[in-house]
């Protein structure tokens, strides 16, 4: 099936115009991040030079390196925690026959109906009572269990032939050995999808770190952005945008590398 030439030109035209519009805010932020105050006031569109002054300033203004490190630790912890907790649960749902499985499955589904924001008040007090304000565990532990992640992995585990399970039992592998040495290696793709999803959503989390961090010790970059913007005094938008660019680079890179994988994995988890 070949597409006719006029139609092709028409599609390319639409693709180029719309993708330019979608990407415009990011390019705009990138260009602003190199501008000085006077340039901004003159309303220039392109900076005079691509000097890194604003980038140096933003690291001066905020403990940005510290925040980046915190975000990285928190995101990786949630990612690993979710992978461990969700894969264990998914394994039980697929490979173990037990009474009450449907009921527990229903409990898992019901957690998806409870918006996280509706429970944040008691959750904040729980963390406070555990004395976990300003700690990594306070930022990460509540997010380890994830119904969506469990379903995603369960979907994939279901496609693993049952014969493999029987063979492993005959070979005398324990349930846990089967899980660790057979199931996890053959499910690498879904684990990567869930991992990328977990990292991305945690890196971008805003409301929870806002509630749980009161000083810079474990504060994440997203809260750093809020601080930066409120410190903003008129003409230093270049510095603010430099901060924005630094913060979005890790997740943009992750998305560019894993876009195909993420798209396949998410649609699978969503629809089957």
């Amino acid at each position, binding site marked *: 099936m070949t597409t006719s030439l006029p139609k092709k030109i028409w599609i390319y035209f639409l693709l180029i115009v719309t993708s330019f519009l979608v990407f415009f805010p990011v390019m705009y932020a990138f260009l602003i991040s190199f501008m000085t105050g006077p340039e901004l006031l003159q309303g220039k569109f392109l900076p005079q030079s691509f000097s890194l002054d604003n980038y140096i300033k933003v690291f001066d203004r905020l403990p940005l390196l510290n925040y980046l490190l915190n975000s990285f630790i928190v995101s990786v912890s949630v990612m690993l925690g979710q992978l461990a907790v969700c894969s264990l649960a998914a394994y039980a749902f697929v490979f173990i026959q037990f009474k009450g499985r449907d009921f527990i499955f229903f409990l898992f589904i019901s957690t998806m109906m409870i918006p996280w*924001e509706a429970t944040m008040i008691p959750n904040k007090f729980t963390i406070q009572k555990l004395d976990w304000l300003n700690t990594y565990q306070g930022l990460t532990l509540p997010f380890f269990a994830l119904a969506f992640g469990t379903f995603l992995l369960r979907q994939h585990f279901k496609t693993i032939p049952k014969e493999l399970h029987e063979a492993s039992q005959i070979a005398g592998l324990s349930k846990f050995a089967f899980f660790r040495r057979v199931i996890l290696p053959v499910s690498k793709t879904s684990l990567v999808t869930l991992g990328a999803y977990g990292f991305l959503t945690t890196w971008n989390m805003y409301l929870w770190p806002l509630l749980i961090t009161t000083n810079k010790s474990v504060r994440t970059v997203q809260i750093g952005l809020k601080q930066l913007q409120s410190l903003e005094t008129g003409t230093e938008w270049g510095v603010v945008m430099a901060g924005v660019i630094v913060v979005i680079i890790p997740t943009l890179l992750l998305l560019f590398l894993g876009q195909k994988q993420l798209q396949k994995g998410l649609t699978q988890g969503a629809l089957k």
Partner: protein
Amino acid sequence: MTLLEKPGIWKRTANGRTALLYLLPSILLFSVFVFYPMFRTIYLSFFLTDQNGDAAIWVGFENYSYLLESTAFINSMKATGLFVLYTVPIGIILALFFALLANEKLRGIGFFRTVYSSTMGISVAASSVIWLFMFNPSMGMFNRLLSLLNLPQIQWLLDPQWALLSVSISTIWMNIGFSFLILLGGLQNIDEHLYESSRIDGAGYFYRLRRITLPMLSPTLFFIITISLINAFQSFGQIDILTQGGPSASTNLIVYSIYREAFINYQFGTASAQAVTLFIIILIVTILQFKLGERRVHYQ
């Protein structure tokens, strides 16, 4: 074989115990951070609370009747409803349009797919800061554009008439990446053969779109509509950075309102009543979607 005993209860529940071991981390975490706080929120919504968020005086449904009479809360609900109406339909239509474009098999299409999905990689906080500058009355791009065209300037985020609309525009942009990615995945799952037979019949593009693509895409569309609705009700970050609920509370969306009531005014009772309202709204949306969806959606 008559001697064969029924295995003891310990043995019969062996599988159950192992399963419990695997499920324990999830069950424990869900209990502490989902189920307990949900019941606790409902419980607190019937009380006046002290500074530590503990129940102090039982007031029954007074928190709720207070909310129903409070113009601030009614306004917040109205703003939330409008915000959902502004962001969800347009966001999905745009994402669908981009997904249809990006589903064409052309050279270099991968690049465009990456660009359309890029907003998914940009956090709400970062997006909001970028849009805050674009909306800036003197230096921002929008007003510069207006002055180039000799049009009157707009106080995007400071004018109560415009603020909610401005926040909605930026939110549509933030959500496009995710909706696009899901819809593109749905389009790519449609069986090619369906199109081939229709092409032989000489059916046009829009005929195929209406008769094949959209019906086959309906489960994905249904999914993304539900998720987008729920997400819209939960919006917080863009409000906190762009408007702080203002001007004159025109962008005081429900989650922001809960946040203020609880952590700025320390009124945990009324805040909990609002949280329960949010929970009920989302529950109704989900149930309605499933009821309507069952009838409309076409599964392969």
